[in-house]
């Protein structure tokens, strides 16, 4: 009953004018900086931390949290219109969002991104309010063995991206895993594949790979079209808003994406990008028309957008209840808590209910604000599509370069986006799918480090990996996914043969 009362009074606290003002500032900043690749939520929050020295903790935290989930809204806009994901977790949004924009449905894509983000975010916060404490005990049971199995399961979903050719998907995923090994190895502190370039010691930043593979590769593709004389500006067809059919197709996707996003978000050390990958492949798996994916299927946009917003709420579960950041941005939010002398943990809900519930409830309001902020902007944003490609491509290159450079202030990252641009262009020419490569880069470090942790703990005993109920369950799911991946194309081919 006490908790219920605290939850309600949290709304009153969140709705105080000062808190509302800072919430608005946070949501606005998040949207703006989410649009720029490289300058994501984590950089914005880190840069604003000193500004909050001496502020009251609650409005400051409300603002910083607003930036965190606001960036998830902003990231989608550039992904859809420019094929340039503003944040790593909007990479999956480009897969169907950009084709939608090219075929004249840019307005609908932006509307769906905002709506899916809103619903995903809100469902995530509801789950955060209701079940965060029991979930956090569950998350504790995930150790190295369980993570290894989870990562392998996630990796097995590569099959859903390959569109027919499993070997091509495997090549792409393996290259991603290889790229993930670049940099200093945590367990032994030795450099791997750094080629004597000190800037590579931290590894290749995910967003650099993503910006290169999507945005720069798209520029190359347009140059090719120009040489062929086939370059034309996109148009806007039909109404800006969603059609009834588009909405019907997306409803289920939003629901499934929200659930997957939240659950993955809760696990520390996974984060939004993995959630979007899983949501996308799940959507493709349940779809009756998987061949539409990658060509502008609106459900392929709705699922990851819902997932990355509910993953954001999910990552606050370990942050608030255990003091463990579930993502890189959450790590900086943890630093903010500590700076204010607040120790997140199980006692926080009892000791400072006003702060916790004020903060959580401000997120409901923040999501509404973001929806209201983003919807009217659609009409403005889609005008970007009227820009002649020659100029638009220049703009994309500038944004991509600024974004890549601002991650580390390092020119090496500029060469890297060019290199990844060439790789992305080449892959498209020979029909190798790009998402498995992203998946490899995202999952690689978590998979490798957890495997090696498991081997150190067990002194090299592989049976340790399947020694708990959770890891056994995940292992069974992994086997099932692999068998299905092999069996489904075979079954389909037979059926096709029969109908012939």
């Amino acid at each position, binding site marked *: 009953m006490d908790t219920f009362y605290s939850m309600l009074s949290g709304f009153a606290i969140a709705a105080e004018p*000062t808190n509302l003002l800072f919430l608005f500032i946070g949501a606005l900043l998040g949207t703006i900086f989410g649009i720029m690749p490289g300058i994501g939520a*984590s950089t914005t929050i880190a840069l604003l931390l000193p500004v909050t020295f001496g502020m009251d903790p609650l409005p400051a935290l409300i603002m910083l949290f607003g930036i965190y989930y606001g960036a998830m809204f902003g990231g989608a806009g550039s992904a859809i219109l420019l094929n340039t994901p503003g944040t790593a977790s909007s990479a999956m949004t480009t897969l169907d969002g950009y084709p939608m924009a090219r075929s004249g449905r840019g307005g609908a894509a932006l509307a769906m991104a905002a709506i899916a983000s809103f619903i995903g975010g809100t469902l995530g916060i509801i789950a955060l309010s209701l079940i965060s404490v029991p979930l956090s005990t569950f998350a504790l049971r995930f150790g190295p063995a369980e993570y290894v199995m989870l990562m392998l399961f996630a990796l097995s979903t590569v099959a859903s991206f390959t569109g027919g050719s499993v070997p091509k998907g495997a090549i792409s995923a393996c290259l991603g895993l290889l790229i993930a090994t670049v940099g200093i190895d945590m367990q032994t502190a030795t450099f791997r594949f750094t080629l004597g370039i000190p800037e590579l010691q*931290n590894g290749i930043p995910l967003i650099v790979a993503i910006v290169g593979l999507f945005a720069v590769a798209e520029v190359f593709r347009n140059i090719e079209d120009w040489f062929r004389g086939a370059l034309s500006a996109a148009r806007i067809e039909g109404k800006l808003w969603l059609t009834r059919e588009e909405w019907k197709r997306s409803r289920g996707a939003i629901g499934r994406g929200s659930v997957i996003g939240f659950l993955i978000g809760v696990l520390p050390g996974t984060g939004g990008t993995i959630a979007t990958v899983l949501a996308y492949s799940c959507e493709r798996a349940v779809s009756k028309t998987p061949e539409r994916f990658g060509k502008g299927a609106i459900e392929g946009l709705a699922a990851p957008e819902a997932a990355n917003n509910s993953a954001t709420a999910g990552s606050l579960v370990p942050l608030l209840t255990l003091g463990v*950041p579930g993502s890189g941005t959450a790590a900086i939010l943890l630093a903010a808590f500590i700076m204010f002398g607040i120790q997140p943990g199980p006692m926080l809900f009892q000791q400072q209910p006003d702060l916790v519930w004020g903060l959580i409830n401000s997120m409901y309001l923040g999501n509404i604000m973001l929806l209201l902020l983003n919807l009217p902007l659609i009409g403005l944003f889609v005008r970007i599509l009227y820009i002649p490609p020659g100029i638009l491509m220049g703009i994309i290159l500038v944004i991509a370069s600024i974004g890549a450079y601002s991650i580390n202030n390092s020119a090496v990252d500029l060469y890297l986006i060019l290199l990844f641009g060439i790789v992305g262009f080449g892959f498209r020419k020979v029909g190798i799918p790009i998402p498995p490569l992203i998946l490899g880069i995202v999952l690689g470090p978590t998979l490798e480090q957890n495997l090696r942790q498991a081997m150190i703990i067990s002194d090299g005993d592989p049976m340790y990996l399947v020694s708990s109920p959770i890891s056994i369950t995940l292992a069974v799911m992994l086997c099932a996914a692999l068998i299905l991946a092999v069996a489904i194309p075979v079954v389909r081919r037979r059926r096709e043969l029969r109908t012939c």
Partner: protein
Amino acid sequence: MTEQMNRKTGRCRRLARALAAASLGLAVSAGAALAWEPTEPIEIMVHSKPGSSPDVLARFIQHIWQKDGLVNVPVTINNQPVISVGFAWLNQHEGNPHKLTVSSTSTVVAPLMGTSDVPWQDLTPISLLISEYIVLGVAPDSELKTAQDFIDSLKKNPKSLSIGFGGSRGNPNNTAVALAAMKAGVDIANLKFVIYSSGAEARIGVMGGHVDAVSNAASGLVGPMVDKTLRIIAVSAPERLTAPFQDVPTWREIGLDVVDSNWRWIGGPGGLTDEQIAFWEDVVAKTVQTPEWKEMVESNHATTTYLNHQDTLKFFEEQEQSMTAVLQSLDLLKK
């Protein structure tokens, strides 16, 4: 209420800043006619991302300097990707006292391990700032009740316990435990160190029963200790820390002479003159005396271990010796 006060103090602060700047200016010009003072904007290089703990410290220093007018030129933070690139950048500005750095234990350790090619002797340390001592935590229901139990178990079999920590090999979380075990005569090359990407993840590794112990700076484990989700059995400080760590014994109390910490220092590129060093020594000495600094250090469960330029040099030399010994036994020295 607080709202109005904040706004008021904001206005007062601007006035105070102007006054402070003016009075400092007078004091300096009256003090020594030959003294150096900055003439162009100050850049503080941090070789880690915005939001990392050295970065937060650097930005805090920037905040105090500008608010209290300790430095009357603009101060900016320059984030560099890795330590060797950062220090190489700093030394491109050799002899330029407007370029500073806030850095950590890695300044001494990284060249020993071969992960940086800029020896600390090429830089000009100005002063040691703070030390975060390293504590060892176990699960509340663990059979390890004391630091002695922990050491005894390792003495019997170095592989009997897995010890988790965040960061990378050779960092203070690693060396503090290794030093203790080494002084107790354990073969530390065989210890099972499990490295996590953050201390928080290592901590839940213990809470979830995946590893036996976690080694981390005190600030990261204060919450779980108060909640009793972890039991803290030892601290690598010369004497016991203040509340809530007052009941945690030091390694010295069980007869192992171990003092190890994650320390932070401030300094500049190589080739600074005595006047320039003296100016910065003075500014830093004033910085660590401010009430805000004391509050920040206390809320981080760290300890201000300010040393002047000469003593900091001595401290670096001592650290280099003790770290060489422990890294050698861990087989982490550059080959």
